[in-house]
Each structure stands twice: as C-alpha cells, then as structure tokens.
C-alpha cells in the first residue's frame, strides 16, 4: 500500500473498506462511517491524548547524542506529589493547613523507553544506529529533563528509566521539549495538534490511537441523532515500530488502560438492546477483551493489557472494528485475524492494494465485522 505522508487526520477523500460478517467486501467514503452503525449500537473510542514522547539529548557517561522514545508506562494511576512549598511565617492558616496535604497528579516518573543513537525521524528507524552501551545508573540529559537508566530490558535499545525531579517539572519539560514520535514516511515535523484526536483527553499514549482520527464532533453528533451510543476508554497506546526485528516481535508492549464506569454501563445497555459493540481502533479491542470476564462482562476500572490477539482469540465483547489499513506483518493485522478468517483478510488486502488505499496513521481505514456473529445472552 501507499504510505500516507501528509498529516491530515480527516482527508476529504479518505476511503473505507468494509468487510461484513459474511466476508463480503465493499468500498465506501470514510466520512460515511456513521451510516454503518445501527440504533442501539455502541461505538467506543480510545480518548488518550498523545505525549510528545520523543526526547533528544545526551547520554551523560559517553557524551553521545541520543533520541529517547518513551514507549510504555507501568500504570495510569495518579500519584501524590508532596507539596514542595513550605508555608511562610507570614502565611495564612489556610496555607499552613494545605502544606500538610499533597498534590494529586498523573504519574510521570517511570517509563519503558527505546533509545536510538544520533539522528531523528527523517532516517528510517531500520537504519538508525544503536545508542552507546547503556548501563543501570547512567544519566540521560534530555533538554530540561534528566533521567536515570534503572535497568536494561534484554535488548541494547530497551530500558526502564526514571525521570528526576517533581512531577510538575517533568510534565513542563515534556510539554516544552518533547516532540511527537514520528516516522520517515511523514517528512514534515509533527506538532501535537497533528496527533491529538478531537476527543483526546489524558496525555498517556506514546503514539496516537489513530483510528480515532476518523472522529470529529459532527460524527459524534450524527451518532447521537441516529440513536447510536458513544463511549470512551483510555489506553496508553505504545509505539508501533522500533525498526529492530527482535524488538518489533515483542510489540505491542504491555499497555495500561482505564475503563470508566459509564462505559461499562453503556456496554451492558447496548447488549440489553441487542446492539453491537463497535471498537474504534485496535487499542479499544485490546482493552475491552483484556478486561472482559469469561461471560463477556466488562467491569470498570484499571488494568494492564498484556495479551496478544490473533486467529485463536475468542472475542467476548467486540462485534466490529474500525481501524487503519494494516500490512500483514504487523501486530494490528494479527488482531484483525480474530475478526475474520485468513481467506477473507487476504481478499481484503488484495482489494486494498488493487484500489490504491493508503496506509499508516494518516491513511485510509477498514471496517471489519466479526464473522458469524451470534447474539449472546445478556449477562445478569
């Protein structure tokens, strides 16, 4: 397929290849996707905003130039930061009382990261040099930020690192020094507004949950008017490629997620109404299927998705997926094999090729219904 190289989230000529439950394939304009949803269906999107997770700087022990790409985090939990300011002698009683409490903010200290040597996104990741030899305790000076390598993760590029300092200073450093992770197929430097979906909320994703680029507020309004429900979850989408075959085989990394109570309730209600659960993006499938019990009930709360979905996976929750167009060697494609058989997916790939669909995050999309759907009993 052709790489989409222009960072436009909703090109007017974007296309959608539809694979229905019986394996039939047809083509549509993507902006008509709401028409594929029926009253009582529930569309669920990942509302994670994307961090500027590419950080340039130096490996302090060697002085070598490095690019650090934040790629994973242990959880979505908030952390208490002890209020740093001390009440002044002249301060009010209120200030004195507050200083004993603490500030609650999103955790930003520990990450899994992929480290590259010199260069930037303009060089294909496959061609990027290794970083200098990294060891636990090494310091990385990344603009206004400073981090320490905590441990190596069985690969010369992959480390666990910890930022030094108070959470608010780290957030400020990321916000001003970080750049969105990007790849050579998009030649222009990306800004955060290029990679935040219109519904982006908490900044916890390392690359955009790009299936959500299809959404705008008009489409959400159109769903509302059509009687289609809309809900979100948050999954810290990890990186899609490292350029290193050994590391790429380990993708996707573990991804923490959070499912709001309102979303769990919406799933229950859609089932009760015999509506379908339509995932906007692979990350939504991963979170919902990880959270679901054997009975298909999705509880609210947090978890860490660590499973791989593929042809042997039984989908307990999701009935259809709207996703990007994926090359057969990607983990995203493996996930689609949980929805459709290999013959159907091969036909779909051939149709994408023959019709010149565009791929990658700013490319065209597919809508795949789960094969042989049976309406399940509503769990009590």
């Amino acid at each position, binding site marked *: 397929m052709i790489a989409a190289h222009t960072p436009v989230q909703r090109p007017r000529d974007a296309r959608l290849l539809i694979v229905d439950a019986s394996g039939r394939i047809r083509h549509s304009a993507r902006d008509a996707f709401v028409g594929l949803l029926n009253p009582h269906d529930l569309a669920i999107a990942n*509302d994670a*905003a994307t*961090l*500027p997770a590419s950080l340039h700087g130096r490996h302090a022990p060697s002085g070598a130039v490095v690019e650090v790409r934040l790629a994973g985090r242990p*959880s979505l*939990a*908030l*952390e*208490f930061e002890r*209020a*740093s*300011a001390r*009440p*002044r002698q002249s*301060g009010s009683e*209120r*200030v004195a009382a*507050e*200083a004993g*409490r*603490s*500030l*609650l*903010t*999103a*955790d*930003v*200290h*520990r990450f899994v990261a992929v480290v590259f040597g010199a260069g930037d996104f303009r060089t294909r990741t496959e061609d990027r040099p290794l970083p200098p030899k990294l060891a636990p305790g090494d310091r990385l000076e990344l603009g206004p930020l400073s981090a320490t390598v905590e441990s190596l993760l069985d690969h010369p590029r992959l480390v666990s690192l910890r930022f030094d300092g108070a959470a*608010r200073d780290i*957030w*400020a450093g*990321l*916000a*001003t020094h970080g750049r969105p992770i990007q790849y050579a197929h998009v030649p222009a430097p990306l*800004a*955060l*507004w290029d990679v*935040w*979906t*219109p*519904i*982006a*909320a*908490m*900044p916890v994703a390392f690359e955009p949950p790009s299936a959500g680029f299809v959404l705008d*507020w008009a489409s*959400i*309004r159109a769903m*509302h008017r059509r009687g289609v429900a809309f*809900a*979100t979850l948050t999954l810290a989408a990890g990186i899609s490629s490292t350029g290193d075959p050994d590391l790429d085989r380990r993708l996707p990394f573990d991804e923490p997620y*959070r499912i*709001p*109570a*309102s*979303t769990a309730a919406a799933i229950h209600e859609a089932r009760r109404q015999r509506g379908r659960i339509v995932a906007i993006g692979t990350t939504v499938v991963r979170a919902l299927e990880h959270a679901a019990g054997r009975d298909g009930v999705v509880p*609210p*709360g*947090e978890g860490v998705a660590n499973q791989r979905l593929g042809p042997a996976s039984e989908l307990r929750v999701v009935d259809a997926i709207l996703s990007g167009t994926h090359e057969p060697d990607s983990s995203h494609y493996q996930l689609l094999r949980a929805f459709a058989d290999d013959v159907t997916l091969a036909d779909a790939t051939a149709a994408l090729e023959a019709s010149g669909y565009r791929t990658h995050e700013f490319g065209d999309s597919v809508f795949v219904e789960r094969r042989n759907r049976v309406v399940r009993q509503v769990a009590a």
Partner: protein
Amino acid sequence: MTTQLNERLDGVRIAITGGTSGLGLALVDELTRRGARVAFVARTRERVDEVARGHPLAYGIVGDVAKKDDIYPIALQITAGLGGLDVLVNNASSLGPVPLALLADTDCEDLELALATNVLGPFRLTKALLGALAASARESVGSVVVNISSDAAVNAYPQWGAYGASKAALRHMTRVWDEELAPQGIHLLSLDPGDMDTPLHALAVPDADPSTLKRPEAAAREIADAIAARLRDGIKSAREVEAVGVMP
C-alpha cells in the same frame, strides 16, 4: 434554581487562565478554598512560582494563551496536573491598545493582540481540552467552560473598541458553542464580573477611584457560585479518585 452561597467544590478539577493577578488570582484563592483542585496558567515563571508558593495545592503552568504554540503544552499540563478536567475558566484578557484609544487610532497589531488573547486563545484552549471536558461530562459531572466577558461586549463605549469587539466575539462564540455542546453535557457560560479593582482596569482607567470599583474577591465568589450551580445539576455522584497508586 436556588443559590447556595459558598457551596463547596471538593475535588472538582478547574483550570484558570490569567491566574496570577486580578480576578484570576482571586479565583485561584476562592476555588482552592472551596476544595477544588486548581491549575492556573500565566505568562511569567516568576509570577507563577510566587502564586504557587502561596497555594501549595494549586498547579502552576507557564504559558501564553495568545500564542498558538503554547496551547497544546498548556492543555497537556492541565490534564496531566489535574488528572482530567471538569471546568475551564478562560479569564486571561488583553485590553488591546494601552492607553485605550479610539478605534481609528488603534494599531492593527493591538487589535490583533486583543483578538489573539480574548478570542483565539479561549477558542484554541477550549478546543484542545474538549476531549477532557467531554470525558468528564460522560463520567458523571457535566463540565463547564466559563468565558469572562464584559459590559463592553454589549455596549459601545468609545475607546473600548478593540477590547469590546473581541469580548463581543467571545460572548457570541460562547453562545453558539453552548448550543452545540449541550448534548455532550458541556455547558458554556459567559459571565460579566463588572468593573473591578484589578491591574487590567488600572491600565484602562488609571485615574479611577478604587473605592468605587468592585473587589475581585466578590466577583470570584459569584463566579464560583455560578460554577457550583451549573455543576450541581450534573452531579450524579460525588467524585472520587477511583484508584490511587503512590509511586515509590
């Protein structure tokens, strides 16, 4: 609707632009006092640090809403700092020409600054935070955007042309957006705090007698009451932090 004065706002996540002086600073005081979790934005690091020292539980962010490139870094720090967002108060304002000038004497650049600060800034920041506000609305508390307005948005006061035109645009944008976003549970309010004894007013009317002006603390109480009244309808359950992990 009954008004309960000094209603608590415990745990409500509120961001305020222009939070280190005048009405913005009074709002940081008032809203933290009522138990809200507050992030505030202002242009200079020194002032942000100073206000943060006096408000250990408030989250200070350095940025200029009139600058396009500052908007996403501000939005990112707001949602990260508060763990989401329920209320945005677009308070930062620019007078345009200082001293005030007749429209015919107003430099285009001064009109542009007023529009960048008073219209484009609130538009861009609200848009960047709409996902977080919609998530808040879906999860229980209807979310609120307060845009600080002025009687100059409605009345034609000579020499207030740049400011008045920009505030009129903001006021109308607020009304349209409120219509459009009501189905999402996001409510936009345009509030006129009145003529207050603030640095902005002193720039506009240097010889005004402060004793004839409203105290910004009084306006902040009214705005906090308006936010509480608007949220009260949407509150289905008290907000609780669902899971809190303390990293070592």
